[in-house]
């Protein structure tokens, strides 16, 4: 019998070099196309100009309107509406500076009129060297009281957690505890994975404002008839207030359900 001739095959490796070339080109192209800073836009609502001629007497303020206003000053934030003003929400401003000369980062509590110097080279910091401005919520017994920080558990996104009754959690909620954040009506159950990323930090005044505004929005949404300005809010700020604070406040208003945010200057309408 003739023996079948078996060809001895050598173990041949797949030639992956062309695939590698392809991948190299693809990765380079995708990296060159990608943007790492995502830009967005915040829409501003401008109230329409009144069409009432000047010689005609203007109507009295409509009592059905909410006329919600958030006033930002360098000491606190006050929420006012047609019915009156809420107690002021006081804050302490903490600024994180990044020195342009040596990239040194340091934090300092902001005091009006005080010159801030870099601890490394003693250079006076310019206003544009402020990297992060934090408004820490403080509770005060009276105007002379310097205030006490309020601490709250915060999730990975930096949103403070509150219980179903609307009180901030001072510690990370226990497993199985119910919690929610401002702007999110869904009540979540705490699990060990989420709890691992939560931490207790100083509560931001923006969060406190958002919580108060959310309560107001819920209250007014249940009114019958519904006020025409139920989703409107005007942010009133002093001319020295930093733009970042106004944007953060716009964010707080929008998260509370007020989608139409208008801006105004203390002492004049814009």
């Amino acid at each position: 019998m003739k023996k079948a001739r078996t060809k001895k095959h050598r173990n041949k490796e797949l030639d992956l070099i062309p695939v590698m070339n392809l991948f190299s080109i693809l990765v380079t192209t995708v990296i060159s196309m990608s943007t790492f800073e995502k830009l967005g836009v915040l829409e501003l609502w401008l109230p329409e100009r009144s069409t009432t001629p000047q010689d005609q007497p203007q109507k009295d303020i409509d009592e059905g309107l909410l006329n919600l206003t958030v006033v930002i000053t360098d000491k606190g934030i006050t929420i006012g509406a047609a019915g009156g003003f809420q107690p002021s929400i006081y804050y302490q401003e903490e600024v994180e500076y990044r020195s342009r000369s040596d990239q040194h980062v340091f934090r300092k509590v902001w005091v009006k009129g005080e010159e801030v110097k870099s601890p490394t080279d003693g250079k006076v910091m310019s206003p544009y060297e402020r990297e992060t401005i934090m408004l820490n919520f403080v509770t005060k017994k009276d105007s002379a009281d310097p205030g006490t920080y309020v601490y709250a558990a915060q999730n990975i996104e930096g949103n403070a957690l509150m219980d179903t009754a609307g009180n901030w959690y001072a510690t990370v909620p226990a497993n199985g505890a119910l919690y929610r954040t401002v702007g999110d009506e869904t009540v979540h159950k705490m699990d060990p994975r989420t709890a691992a990323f939560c931490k207790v930090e100083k509560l931001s005044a923006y969060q406190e404002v958002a919580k108060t505004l959310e309560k107001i929005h819920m209250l007014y949404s249940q009114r019958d008839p519904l006020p025409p300005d139920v989703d409107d809010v005007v942010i009133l700020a002093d001319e020295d207030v930093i733009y970042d604070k106004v944007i953060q406040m716009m964010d707080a208003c929008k998260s509370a359900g007020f989608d139409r945010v208008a801006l105004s200057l203390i002492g004049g309408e814009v």
Partner: protein
Amino acid sequence: MAHRKIKRQEEAGLIITSLIDVFVIVLTFLMRTISAEGNLMTSADNLVLPMSQRSKSPTEVSLTIIADQKNLTVDDKVLMTTESVRKQDSLLIKPVLDVLTKKRDEEKHAEMMGLIKEATGKVVVQFDKNTPYDIVTKVMATCGYAGYNNIKFAVTKKNEEG
């Protein structure tokens, strides 16, 4: 003379399978993060935009005003310094108003000619996050006076939705 014994070496093949694995992971990650919409808006230099969680994606950008740490720019044209805007008493910024009025007239003319669907009066404003509110109000007032009532603030998205 003794012949040097030449050892026949087998070809040393490069094992690149693990490298390919790395590339596949990098590529998958990049494809996931990249936005297919492209970039309608670019942030200016010398400027740090504020962060916002509630921002929307820009849909259309026709006119951009930039107030950075040094200058006030309308459509890439430097008009004046931010310091001089801060110092002026008037609410309207004259050089900006002139440019905006001209552009608004052009926009309205284009609408009449049927070149554009609607003269929406949209403007995107990029302010440095440390800009005093005084400058913001002056720019806004000037935009409103020139007929640009659809003002949008450019921000950096804090976290991507979805």
